[in-house]
C-alpha cells in the first residue's frame, strides 16, 4: 500500500505543528520518522492514523485521495497505529481484546477468533496466551497483541510510536523480526517513530526528519548516528562569537557532590559538578536523557537520593524550592503554561504575584510595573490580557520579566523552545545580561548551535550518563556522536 501525504498543515494556536509536509511511504519499506520533541512527528502520525484532524493538505492511499475522520475510518482504509501506551482494555483477556473492534454483530466468534489469533502470533513469533488478563501482560506483550489485532482488522500500513520504550531487549528483537517480516513478506508499509537512533539504524530502510514542524530531510539508510543527529538538530555552524570569558577566578555558586537522581525513566548516578559565577553550562542530549533531572535538582524541585546540592556555600540538600528561590536560584520549565505561568491570570496579576509584598495589593502600582515590563521586555500583550492568549515567544518574554533581576543561578529547561531565531537571540541577550551581573546559567537545549554558541562547558547526557565537553573545542559533529550514545569513542 502506497501512502502519500501532500502539503499537510496543522496548527495548534500559535504553533505550526505540521508546516507543509509532503511525503511518500511506499509498501514493503520501514520508514523511520525522526525529530526532537515538538518537531511535529507525533502530530503527523496521528493525522495519518485518524486520531487528529488537519487544517489543509491531503492524504492519498494507492493514488486515491482519502478523507477519513477518526481511527476507525483509518483502519477501514488499512492504516493502523500502535500507540506508545497500547490502547487495550485492562479488564479484558487477550482474546477479548483481540475480538473487540472487529466488525460483526453482538455474537462473538470466539472459536474463529482464537484460531486467527493463534495463527498470527505463531507466524510472527509472539507468545500470547488467549486467556491471560491484560493486567498480567508486559508492555511488550501488549504491543504484540495490538499488532495482531490491527493485522486481523486488515491493516496494510502500521504506524508505531516509540515501540521500544519500556520493553526488554529480547522482546525488541522479536518485535523487529516481526516488523521485518511484515515489510518484506507481506509488503506492508511500516512507519516507526523513535527517539532511539540505534533502533532506527537497525530497522529502517529510509528516514524522514522533521524539525519545528517542517520536513528537513529524507534519506535512504544506512546512515551513521552522527549523520542522523546532524539532520535532527540542524547543521548550521555556529557563529564564531562563542562564550570564552575566563571564569576560573570567579567564586563557586553551585556545587553538586556525588548526586544520585532518579526520574521516571532514567537515573543519573554519581554526578559531581562545580559551577562558577558567570559560567554557562549547556546540557545536551535527546529528550529525557537526564538533563531535566539535573536542572530540577539544582532548583530544589527534585530531591536527590544521595549526594549534596550546595548553593553559594550553603548546603540546601532536601530543602524546599522556596529556599532555593530565596537564595537566588531561578528555574524555568519547558512547559510554560504548565510550569511557570498561570492560565486565567492576567499579566498584571502575574507581576503583582512576584512584586507585591504587603498585605494589600496596590493594583495601580502593579499595572504601572506591568506596563513598564511589557515595554522593557517587548511583550506583545496588554496588562489585562490573560497570559494564555500570548504567543509562545511572548510567554517566554513574560517569564523573563517575572524572573529575579539578579539571580545567583539560573536553571533553564529549553529556554528558547519553539521560538524563532529573533526571539531566541533576544532571550539570550536577557540571559547574558544577568550573567554579566554574576549569575551562572545551566540550560538544556535541543539546538546544537545554541549549545555551542552560549556554553562554556557542555554536559552530554545519554541514558543518564554524563559526559563533559569543552564547548570551545568541540564540534557539532562530535556533539552529535555523543548525543547518539557514542560516549566512549569520543
Amino acid at each position, binding site marked *: 500500500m502506497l501512502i502519500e501525504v501532500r502539503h499537510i498543515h496543522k496548527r495548534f494556536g500559535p504553533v505550526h505543528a505540521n508546516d507543509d509536509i509532503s511525503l511518500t511511504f511506499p509498501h514493503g519499506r520501514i520508514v523511520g520518522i525522526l525529530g526532537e520533541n515538538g518537531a511535529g512527528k507525533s502530530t503527523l502520525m496521528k493525522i495519518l492514523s485518524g486520531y487528529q484532524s488537519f487544517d489543509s493538505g491531503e492524504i492519498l492511499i494507492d493514488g486515491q485521495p482519502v478523507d477519513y475522520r477518526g481511527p476507525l475510518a483509518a483502519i477501514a482504509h488499512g492504516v493502523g497505529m500502535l500507540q506508545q501506551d497500547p490502547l487495550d482494555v485492562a479488564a479484558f483477556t487477550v482474546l477479548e481484546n483481540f475480538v473487540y473492534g472487529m466488525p460483526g454483530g453482538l455474537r462473538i466468534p470466539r472459536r474463529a477468533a482464537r484460531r486467527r489469533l493463534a495463527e498470527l502470533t505463531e507466524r510472527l513469533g509472539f507468545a500470547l496466551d488467549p486467556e491471560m488478563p491484560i493486567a498480567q501482560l508486559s508492555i511488550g506483550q501488549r504491543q504484540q497483541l495490538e499488532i495482531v489485532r490491527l493485522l486481523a482488522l486488515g491493516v496494510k500500513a502500521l504506524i508505531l510510536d516509540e515501540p521500544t520504550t519500556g520493553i526488554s531487549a529480547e522482546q525488541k528483537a522479536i518485535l523487529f523480526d516481526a516488523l521485518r517480516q511484515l515489510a518484506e513478506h507481506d509488503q506492508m508499509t511500516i512507519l516507526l517513530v523513535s527517539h532511539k537512533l540505534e533502533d532506527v539504524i537497525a530497522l529502517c530502510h529510509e528516514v524522514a526528519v522533521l524539525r519545528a514542524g517542517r520536513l528537513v530531510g529524507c534519506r535512504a539508510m544506512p546512515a551513521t548516528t552522527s549523520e542522523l543527529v546532524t539532520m535532527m538538530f540542524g547543521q548550521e555552524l555556529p557563529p564564531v562569537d562563542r562564550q570564552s570569558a575566563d571564569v576560573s577566578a570567579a567564586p563557586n555558586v553551585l556545587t553538586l557532590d556525588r548526586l544520585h537522581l532518579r526520574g521516571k525513566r532514567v537515573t543519573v548516578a554519581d554526578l559531581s559538578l562545580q559551577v562558577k559565577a558567570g559560567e554557562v553550562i549547556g546540557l545536551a542530549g535527546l529528550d529525557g536523557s537526564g538533563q531535566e533531572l539535573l536542572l530540577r535538582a539544582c532548583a530544589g524541585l527534585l530531591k536527590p537520593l544521595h549526594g549534596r546540592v550546595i548553593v553559594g556555600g550553603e548546603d540546601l540538600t532536601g530543602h524546599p524550592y522556596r529556599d532555593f528561590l530565596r537564595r537566588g536560584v531561578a528555574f524555568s520549565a519547558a512547559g510554560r503554561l504548565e510550569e511557570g505561568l498561570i492560565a486565567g491570570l492576567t499579566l498584571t496579576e502575574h507581576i503583582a504575584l512576584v512584586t507585591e509584598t504587603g498585605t494589600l495589593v496596590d493594583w495601580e502600582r502593579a499595572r504601572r510595573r506591568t506596563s513598564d515590563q511589557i515595554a522593557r521586555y517587548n511583550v506583545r500583550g496588554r496588562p489585562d490580557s490573560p497570559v494564555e492568549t500570548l*504567543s509562545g515567544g511572548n510567554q517566554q518574554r513574560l517569564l523573563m520579566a517575572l524572573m529575579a533581576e539578579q539571580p545567583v543561578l539560573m536553571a533553564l529547561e529549553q529556554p528558547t523552545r519553539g521560538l524563532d531565531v529573533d526571539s531566541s537571540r533576544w532571550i539570550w541577550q536577557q540571559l547574558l545580561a544577568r550573567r554579566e551581573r554574576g549569575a551562572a546559567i545551566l540550560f538544556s537545549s535541543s539546538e546544537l548551535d545554541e549549545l555551542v554558541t552560549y556554553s562554556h562547558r557542555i554536559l552530554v547526557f545519554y541514558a543518564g550518563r554524563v559526559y563533559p565537553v569543552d564547548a570551545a573545542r568541540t564540534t557539532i559533529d562530535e556533539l552529535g556522536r555523543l548525543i547518539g550514545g557514542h560516549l566512549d569513542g569520543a
Partner: protein
Amino acid sequence: MKSQTLTAQAALTALPIILSLAITALLVMAVGADPREVFTLVWEGAFRDLRAVGQVVNFWIPLTLCSIGLVVTFTAGLWNIGVEGQMILGAVFASWAALTLDLPAPILVPVEILLAMLGGALWALLVGVLKVRLGVHEIFGGVALNALANVIAIYLISGPWQPPEGGSVRATPPFPAPALLPPLSDTFKVSLLALVIVVVAVVGVWLALRGTRWGLQLKATGKNARSAMLLGVPTGRSALSAFIVCGMLAGIAGSYRVLFTYNSLRPGVSGGIGFLGLLVVLLVANRALWAPLVAFAFAAVLGGSARLKIALQLDASLAGVLQGFLVLTALLSNGLRARLAPPTPISMIEEPAPQPIPAEAAHEQ
C-alpha cells in the same frame, strides 16, 4: 466592553435558573397541577408576611455564611465538601459553651461564636492537612470528616449532654436564655447580630479576594498550583488558610443553627445547608457578591415550598427537584460557557504591538 461581559455573565448565571424553573414547571404539569399555582404558592409561602420572610432569612443567614466561605475555598481550587462537618463542629463548640458556661449574655454570645469559629476551623484544617501534607483529596477527607462530625454530635446528644429526663437522642436540653441570640422582634424573628456578621463576612471576603495579596495567591493556587509554587507562592499555606477561613464561617453558620434556629443541639443540625452552599458556589464561582443573592433565592424557594403539600398535595421535595435541576443546568451552562468562549484571539495580541525597544537599551535599565 466591560458592561457587555457583565451582561453576558449575568445571562449565563440566570440561564440555569430559568431553565430549571421551566423543567420543574413541566414536571408539575405532568402530575396534573398548574405550575402558575405552584409558583404563586411558593412565592406566597416565602413572602406572605414578615414571619415568613423571617423564616427565609433565618435559612439564608447560615447558607450565605457557608457559601461565602466556600467561595474562598473555591477560589483556591478546593472542593470543600466537608463544610457540613465544619458546621456541625461549630454547632458542637457553641453548644458546649451554651451548656456549661455561666456568663452574662454580652460575654457568653461572643465566646460561643468564637468557639464555633474555632471548631469549624479545626475541622477544616484537618481536611486541609490531610490534603496538603498527606495527599488525601479534600472530597474524600471531607466526606469522612462529615460522617465523623455527625457521630460526635449524636454521641454528645445521647450521652454527656442528654436532657435530665434521659434517654433521648432528639436534642440536648434547651439552652438558657443568655446563651441565645435575641430576635429583632416577635414578628420578624431574625438575629441582628447574625445579619451584621453576614454582611461583614460577605464584604470582607469580597475585599480580601480583590485587594489583598492573600486573595491573589489563593487565585493563583486555584488556577495552577504548580506554576504558583514556581512563582514563589506558598501554595500549601494558601490552601490551608482557605480551609481555615471557610471553616470559621461554616462554624458561625453552625452556631447560628443551635443558638437561634433550634435553641439546642440536635442531630442533623446542619440540615444540608453546607451542601446547598456548594450548589450556590457552583452558580456564582468566585464572585463573592453574587453568593448572598443566589443564596437568598434558594432560601426563598425552600421556605416557600413548605406549604405545597397542604395546598396542592404536592410533596415539598419539589424544591429539592428544582435544586437538582439547577445543579445540572448550572454545570451544563458552565460547559457551554467554555465552549462558547472564543478561541484564543491571536490577532488581538499581535496587532497592538508596543514600540519595539532595542534589546540592548532594554537590559541596560
